[in-house]
């Protein structure tokens, strides 16, 4: 893993760097599996190796491929980095030994999650119950973050008017003719992807998975569709305003669940009061908010991808000359 990272430092070709970054993401994910963090590994695999690679590629397509070879003041940078690193190494000397059971991290708060969460929340996947219930507010914040990013990208990249429409149609046509095999494979693949996403969405209580991962997979399905069948077809299927509404709806759904429990006499996001049986209430609450997360993530990732791709019209020309 370190070697991959070193290679990233030296490489100048950005596409190669991004590919390496994808490998790095996958390595990280497998490391997480080795560390017993299956949920995290799942997310890292879909984000680190999937979405972020994709976004970087799209962004590179919009800008330039080669990195300029000038490197300025590396000595200063090296100094800062070494000082920070030294400080961290210094800090590690008093850390509890790796993997030891007596570390305070394992003995204080976490103890209760492991011992009592099944009785209190009624879900075997502890990560999900902590995520959605004990620390549900963090997750709410997380949804808002992703929503913010979506809105931010929209605010920055929205193209008003259809100046480059014609241009785009041409590229679309090219794609259509070239990749017949791909398209047929994809046609078979996409329904399965979407189905798998739904499975991940609702199975999160028992195995690894949940709203976020499901959202990413779902969005990946849509993006694959868009890439192979052309932006315009995809736009026709998935309306822009609609998807913005879905993004907002996800956040609102999450908030509404919170408010509902508030109205029912609990505190914000206290699902126990949703139904008469607290465990069932918890379960219902978690399913609902996971749904909210899934909706927002799907919508936002699609929005981000579309906004990037929508810039293509302006960029095409410059891109051809530059690369």
């Amino acid at each position, binding site marked *: 893993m370190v070697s991959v*990272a070193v290679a990233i430092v030296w490489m100048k070709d950005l596409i190669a760097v991004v590919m390496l*970054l994808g490998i790095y993401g996958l390595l990280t994910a497998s490391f997480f599996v080795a560390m017993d963090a299956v949920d995290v590994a799942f997310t890292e695999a879909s*984000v680190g190796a999937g979405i972020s690679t994709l976004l970087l590629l799209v962004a590179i397509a919009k800008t330039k491929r080669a990195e300029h070879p000038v490197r300025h003041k590396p000595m200063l940078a090296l100094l800062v980095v*070494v000082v920070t690193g030294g400080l961290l190494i210094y800090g590690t000397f008093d850390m509890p*030994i790796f993997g030891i059971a007596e570390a305070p991290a394992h003995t204080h708060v976490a103890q209760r999650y492991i011992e009592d969460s099944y009785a209190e929340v009624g879900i075997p996947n502890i990560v999900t119950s902590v995520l959605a219930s004990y620390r549900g507010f963090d997750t709410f914040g997380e949804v808002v973050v992703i929503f913010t990013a979506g809105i931010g990208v929209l605010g920055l990249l929205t193209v008003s008017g259809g100046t480059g429409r014609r241009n785009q149609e041409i590229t679309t046509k090219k794609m259509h003719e070239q990749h017949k095999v791909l398209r047929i494979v994809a046609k078979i693949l996409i329904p399965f992807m979407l189905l798998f996403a739904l499975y991940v969405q609702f199975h999160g209580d028992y195995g690894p998975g949940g709203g976020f991962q499901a959202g990413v997979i779902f969005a990946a399905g849509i993006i694959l569709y868009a890439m192979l069948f052309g932006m315009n077809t995809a736009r026709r299927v998935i309306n822009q305003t609609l998807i913005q509404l879905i993004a907002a709806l996800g956040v609102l759904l999450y908030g509404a669940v919170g408010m509902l429990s508030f109205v029912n006499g609990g505190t914000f996001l206290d699902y126990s009061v949703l139904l008469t049986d607290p465990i069932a209430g918890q379960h219902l609450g978690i399913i609902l908010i996971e749904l909210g997360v899934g909706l927002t993530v799907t919508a936002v990732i699609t929005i981000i991808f579309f906004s990037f791709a929508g*810039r293509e019209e302006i960029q095409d020309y410059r891109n051809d000359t530059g690369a």
Partner: protein
Amino acid sequence: MLIGHYNYWVVVALMMLGFFIIIAHGNLIKKIIGLTIFQTSVFIFYISIAKLDGGSAPILAEGVSDYSNPLPHVLILTAIVVGIATTALGLAITVRINEAYGSIEEEFIQKQDNQT
């Protein structure tokens, strides 16, 4: 003692590499890649905290009594999402910069700014 902290040192090494890219490289996309590596190394650090020798994944099952610590996992799930959100926004700004300046190299942009 030495073995006990090996994991953390790898993390520090990765962190430093990412940080170095952020500071030393002039290419805007490369900087964002550096940022990703930097953040990922922090994730690995958190997950390392959570690891328990002999523990298994924190999904309750029959006959398993030791689980890894679920809390850092949750935190990192959130942090990964935050990370991708930042990356997306950073790239959006980069694309706009490229349109406005015609370059994604720090030096060129600075030069153009100084002229105006």
